[in-house]
């Protein structure tokens, strides 16, 4: 168990909370590229209500939701050539929050020079809009490899999940769940549903796991039944990228699972996928964005694929998992290490230090480690992942399968 106080400290993401202050030291995806248009939209990040827009000059802005004039929501507004005009009385603000116009006030008034909307820095990278809500100067936006590769296809799936982000992150340092949630339970559903062939790959038992704090977060290694420490699952592993991402995949197929805290009880989950076969992918005109559904036509949680099983495990832990009632064992050491790392980095911020994975120097790319042959075989993993992950909902799913040219597996 964890004490109620420590659970509170671990999970509260709003301004002023220790975790909230830690998380405000990072850039967060606040939207996909298609959400930033001339029509302002409401977004919520780290417990703060925001308005995202792209003005007529193409500049993306992110302001606090409420207009500083009479507190109407600024998504009730119109974008102009420069800035966003509140729909209520026409006050206009640029992307830095500066008030440019106050219709109705005397022409000679300097009142507008003393009014400021709360504005946050934003940057576009790899089809995502990133925002920084912390103290200035902002660190560099980390140019992680998947966001910047020029010879890869991408797609972006996303869903709002009704639970705290920490329980989702804990899943990423919990390797044993793979063989049970996706192996045994997933195959149980297949048996019940009349599928003869069980899923291979995810059913293999774990022989050994290890976790190592390193410059990008926590590196996770595993030895599976029938494999050795010479296999890439152990020799290379793959990382939890602190504080908010999992990097997972195999040769040519690499994903960031990005867990964005909307507030204490809700998380925007982004599946950011890249497809980069040997020799690179042909140019891609635009990055498709799609919703990952949570429910089937009967209103029941979708559980017949890997990501659906994960989602239901996360959500059913509760809006904020009550860790005072849990019972951790040795197989949970990765989870414990992650909690300790959050505690340590909260303390670093309180001491005035930059936390782990803060970049102050401009850089071209940050390369992350990841297995090429995952669970023993890149092809088998890609066969599974293109069919049994959220990629099943991608509008370019068929093109992705064709891009790699892997044979159709016998279990499909």
């Amino acid at each position, binding site marked *: *168990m*964890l*004490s109620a*106080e*420590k659970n509170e*400290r671990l999970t509260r993401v709003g301004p002023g909370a*220790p975790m909230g202050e830690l998380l405000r030291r990072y850039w967060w995806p606040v939207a996909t590229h298609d959400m930033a248009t001339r029509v302002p939209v409401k977004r919520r990040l780290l417990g703060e209500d925001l308005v995202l827009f792209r003005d007529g000059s193409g500049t993306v802005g992110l302001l606090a939701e409420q207009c500083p004039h009479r507190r109407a929501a600024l998504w009730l507004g119109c974008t102009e050539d420069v800035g966003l005009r509140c729909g209520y009385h026409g006050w206009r603000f640029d992307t830095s929050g500066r008030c440019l116009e106050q219709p109705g006030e005397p022409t000679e008034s300097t009142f507008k020079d003393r009014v400021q909307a709360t504005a946050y820095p934003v940057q576009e990278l790899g089809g995502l809009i990133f925002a920084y809500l912390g103290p200035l100067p902002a660190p560099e936006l980390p140019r992680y490899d998947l966001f910047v590769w020029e010879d890869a296809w991408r797609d972006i799936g996303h869903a709002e999940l009704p639970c705290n982000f920490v329980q989702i992150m804990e899943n990423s340092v919990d390797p044993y769940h793979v063989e049970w949630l996706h192996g045994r339970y997933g195959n149980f559903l297949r048996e019940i549903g009349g599928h003869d062939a069980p899923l291979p790959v995810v059913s293999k038992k774990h022989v050994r796991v290890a976790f190592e704090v390193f410059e990008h977060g926590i590196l996770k290694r595993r030895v599976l039944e029938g494999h050795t420490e010479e296999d890439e699952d152990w020799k290379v592993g793959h990382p939890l990228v602190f504080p908010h991402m999992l990097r997972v995949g195999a040769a040519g197929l690499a994903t960031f699972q990005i867990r964005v805290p909307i507030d204490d009880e809700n998380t925007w989950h982004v599946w950011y996928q890249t497809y980069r076969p040997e020799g690179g992918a042909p140019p891609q005109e635009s990055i498709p964005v799609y919703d990952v559904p949570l429910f089937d036509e009967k209103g029941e949680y979708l559980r017949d694929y890997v990501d659906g099983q994960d989602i239901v495990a996360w959500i059913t832990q509760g809006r904020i998992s009550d860790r005072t009632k849990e*019972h*951790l*064992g*040795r197989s*949970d*050491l990765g989870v*414990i290490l992650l*909690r*300790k790392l959050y*505690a*340590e980095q*909260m*303390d670093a911020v*309180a001491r005035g230090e930059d936390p782990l994975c803060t970049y102050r120097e401009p850089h071209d790319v940050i390369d992350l480690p990841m297995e090429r042959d995952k669970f023993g075989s890149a092809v088998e993993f890609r066969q599974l992942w293109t069919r049994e992950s959220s990629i099943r909902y991608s509008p370019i799913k068929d093109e992705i399968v064709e891009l790699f040219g892997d044979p159709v597996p016998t279990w499909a």
Partner: protein
Amino acid sequence: MGIGFCPGCGTALDETSFVQEFWSGADRHFLCWCASCRLMCTVIIGALVGTEPEH
């Protein structure tokens, strides 16, 4: 029952420190990280296992 003080420096393990209970067979363990002296250790009831820093 929990661990109230750092086994290394004796400072109270307050809210900024980290204490996590887990079980290993019949043994009750507490992983502790002290925000004051930065010691990470595991207290097993009746024993103390130190985590040696990397060197």
